[in-house]
């Protein structure tokens, strides 16, 4: 609808500049014999990285870990989204909030919570079960691949949920109705009609989760290392940490395989969803999503969903709260409860740096997410509606810095920003965040985009509206569910961003996550948990504001 090549080119230039620069720096670094990006040329880092005898086993673990997490996150998201958007389950709004809570928790904290719950020695849940059933051995061991998959899957659940739920709620019900009239049960309709039509959203979520878990470090280090299970990101860490002169070039060399994997995935995704017409579900005939009446199943299902949410999400958050009240890590006991106090909270809330970082993070969250979603809307447009080779390039570019393992990409940005005047400023953080987490905006928005029947846009064009007017009046209002998801994902991500912040943040530009990391490195779980809860609280407020605003916006179409 725009002069397509121009828009596409502009976006390629912007996005390319943002994401390519750090990656190019890393590429240079991986061929540089020195610790900086411009050193003497060498290929030794690649040779060392890829001739490591453990590499094959690590790749296999990585495949299992990322694939498993994607499966857990996507299945859970589908289940929750279906129940939340399509049935008359009581108190649905609670589950909507719960489904995105893990997005707000710093991943280290969530991982540690799970360790406290499910470690085989004295994990609280394990001990409870042992007492309950008189078992000799702990039932669960978190320090295993399934344990890692569970926790990473839960952490990435919000990503999957925020992509799948809007698609689910925009579904043209007559497609399901006709299936039922054809004699198909609810289940068959789900499997044969609903899920296949939702394929872009499901694939998008799976791919995003795979890419995210590929870059994830918290779960592999907190849960994987003690279990002696190494995946790509911990393997990279191991390579950096063995020696005081951390060699990020070599880490980048290893990271290139993650990058290759991500780009391949994106092309697979594009191929699988290449006929976008197949997934148009907001037909122009209007949609009235009807609710599946659960009737007698209502309360049993409520209990199941409630129980699931409680165990998987609320419990770890409660552990956090519990930890925040304690002077040091303790399993629940009379002694522990006797020692509870608000000390950690007062400490955190009176610490000027914590307060400054709170302010900075809030700024980055709100402003960054707003700029980020705006950019995402345009990029999604090109990706979904233009679908040329150039748009494929754009899509891959948008994933570039996102798909690099976290510990490396930060250094890439540092290598890049140090050559610009914004080095060490909050703007550097802002730009870095947006560049890295662009897919959080693009994914939900573009999967909402594919569902809009092109006639809706076209009729606006014929009515004399320019592309931008059409965008404002027609496309954006119809995209609101996706935009809200994108904004929430970005805002809550920026609020707890760690990997970039830890290299780019400087005195004066402290952010929450760096503060969290400092506490974590000093082993101060109490203040850490308190700060974590504060972050969850702030994120929740942002989420609520976004949701309310979104509802308003999608209704409010006559502005001047």
């Amino acid at each position, binding site marked *: 609808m725009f002069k397509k090549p121009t828009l596409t080119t502009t976006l390629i230039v912007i996005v390319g500049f943002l994401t390519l620069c750090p990656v190019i720096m890393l590429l240079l670094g991986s061929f540089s014999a020195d*610790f*900086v*990006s*411009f050193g003497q040329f060498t290929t030794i880092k690649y040779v060392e990285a890829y001739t490591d005898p453990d590499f094959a086993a690590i790749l296999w673990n990585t495949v299992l870990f990322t694939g498993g997490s994607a499966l857990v996150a996507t299945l859970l998201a589908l289940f929750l989204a279906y129940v939340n958007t399509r049935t008359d389950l009581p108190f649905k709004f609670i589950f909507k909030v719960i489904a995105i809570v893990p997005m707000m928790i710093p991943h280290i904290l969530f991982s*540690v919570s799970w*360790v*406290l719950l499910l*470690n085989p*020695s*004295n*994990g609280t849940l394990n001990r409870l079960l042992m007492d309950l059933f008189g078992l000799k051995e702990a039932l669960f061991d978190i*320090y295993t691949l399934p344990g890692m998959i569970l926790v990473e899957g839960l952490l990435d659940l919000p990503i999957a949920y925020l992509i799948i739920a809007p698609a689910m709620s925009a579904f043209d019900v007559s497609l399901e109705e006709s299936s039922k009239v054809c004699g198909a049960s609810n289940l068959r309709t789900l499997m044969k009609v609903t899920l296949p039509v939702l394929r872009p959203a499901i694939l998008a979520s799976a791919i995003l989760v795979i890419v995210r878990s590929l870059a994830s470090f918290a779960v592999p*280090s*907190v849960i994987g*290392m*003690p279990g*002696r299970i190494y995946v790509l990101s*911990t393997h990279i*860490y*191991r*390579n*950096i*940490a*063995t*020696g*005081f*002169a*951390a060699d*990020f070039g070599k880490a980048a060399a290893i990271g290139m395989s993650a990058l290759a994997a991500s780009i391949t995935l994106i092309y697979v995704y594009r191929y699988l969803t290449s006929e976008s017409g197949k997934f148009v579900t907001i037909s122009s005939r209007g949609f009235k999503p009807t609710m599946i009446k659960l009737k007698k199943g209502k309360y049993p299902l409520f209990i199941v969903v409630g129980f699931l949410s409680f165990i998987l999400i609320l419990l770890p958050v409660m552990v956090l709260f519990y930890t925040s009240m304690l*002077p*040091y*890590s*303790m*399993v629940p006991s009379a002694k522990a409860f006797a020692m509870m106090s608000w000390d950690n909270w007062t400490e955190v809330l009176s610490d000027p740096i914590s307060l400054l970082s709170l302010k900075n993070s809030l700024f980055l969250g709100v402003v960054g997410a707003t700029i980020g979603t705006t950019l995402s809307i345009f990029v999604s447009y090109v990706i979904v509606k233009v679908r040329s080779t150039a748009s494929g390039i754009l899509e891959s570019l948008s994933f570039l810095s996102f798909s690099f393992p976290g510990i490396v990409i*930060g*250094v890439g940005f*540092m*290598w890049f920003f*140090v*050559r610009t005047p914004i*080095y*060490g400023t909050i703007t550097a953080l802002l730009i870095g965040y947006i560049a890295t987490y662009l897919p959080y905006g693009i994914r939900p928005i573009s999967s909402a985009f594919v569902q809009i029947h092109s006639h809706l846009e076209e009729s606006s064009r014929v009515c004399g509206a320019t592309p931008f007017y059409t965008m404002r009046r027609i496309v954006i209002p119809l995209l609101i569910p996706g935009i809200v998801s994108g904004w929430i994902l970005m805002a809550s991500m920026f609020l707890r961003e760690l990997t970039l912040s*830890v*290299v780019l943040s*400087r*005195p004066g530009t402290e952010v929450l996550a760096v503060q969290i*990391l*400092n506490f*974590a*490195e*000093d*082993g*101060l*779980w109490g203040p850490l948990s308190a700060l974590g809860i504060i972050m969850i609280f702030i994120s929740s407020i942002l989420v609520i504001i976004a949701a309310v605003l979104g509802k308003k916006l999608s209704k409010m179409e006559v502005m001047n």
Partner: protein
Amino acid sequence: AEKINFYANITAIEPIIDDFNSSHTPGAIYTRISTSKYLATVLTEFSAGKLRADVLQSPLPIMQILKEKGVLAPYKSAAAAGYPTWAQEDDSIIQFGIEYVAPIYNKDLVKPEDVPTRYEDLTDPKWYNKMVMPDPASHATTISWLVGMKEAKIFGDDAGWMKFLKGLAANKPMFVKSFGPTPAPIESGEKVLGISMPKYIISKAPAPLAWAKVDTLLGTPRGIAVAANASDPKAAQEFVDYWLSKNAMQLLASQVGEYVLAPGVFPPIDGISTVKVLPIRSLSDDEIRSWGKEFRKIFYEK
């Protein structure tokens, strides 16, 4: 005048900076950079001409690389007068403390009679599945520490050392990524014993932590130096002087639990003032990596 920029990997030093700022204007600001990113950050900024640091602090091996790259300015501080001679031999780097390592245990869960008194006690099978330590295959400080034990002949000959390693490995300690996460499992009782740092006894009080009183402790020395491009070298030198003063070192020991080289200053931990604390030789990264490989074989054996 600008504030003095202090890049450090040592943590929790706010009380010292505060104290400095209360008596000096314009004062100093502290930029905390973790060990793994220290060199990359400083060298990147340095090569781009944007190094902001006036004073740098990090583990000795990193300081030595920085010196090699020309990042450091020569300075011999008079404040280091009473320090051991090996700590002030270098013309730029002054060593002021040791990142000391010791067996730490949970005093609620380990009976007094079971508390190890020698490193060899850690190989007792009763600790099977009950220990935690940083990953000996990748964590540089831990690798150096293990090598340091060999070179300090803690176990007599190399065979004794190897026996210790094998015994330790046989107890299947849980590996974490660095010293930071070692105290938590001990506090919570998930494990009861670990190779960790005594400073946590101070910083994590009132957690039930104590150290097993072996007779020699080892650690990587910590160094401090003035940056070659310090915007105000005089002020930077003044900061280093202050840092090395008995006053500042006293704060570091008592508030953070650090082991310092200032004469007569000790952290308030029972038994530390009498134990031998030895600096570990600076290993080159190649050495660390090849030892890491060795240790991987020993510790990761199924």
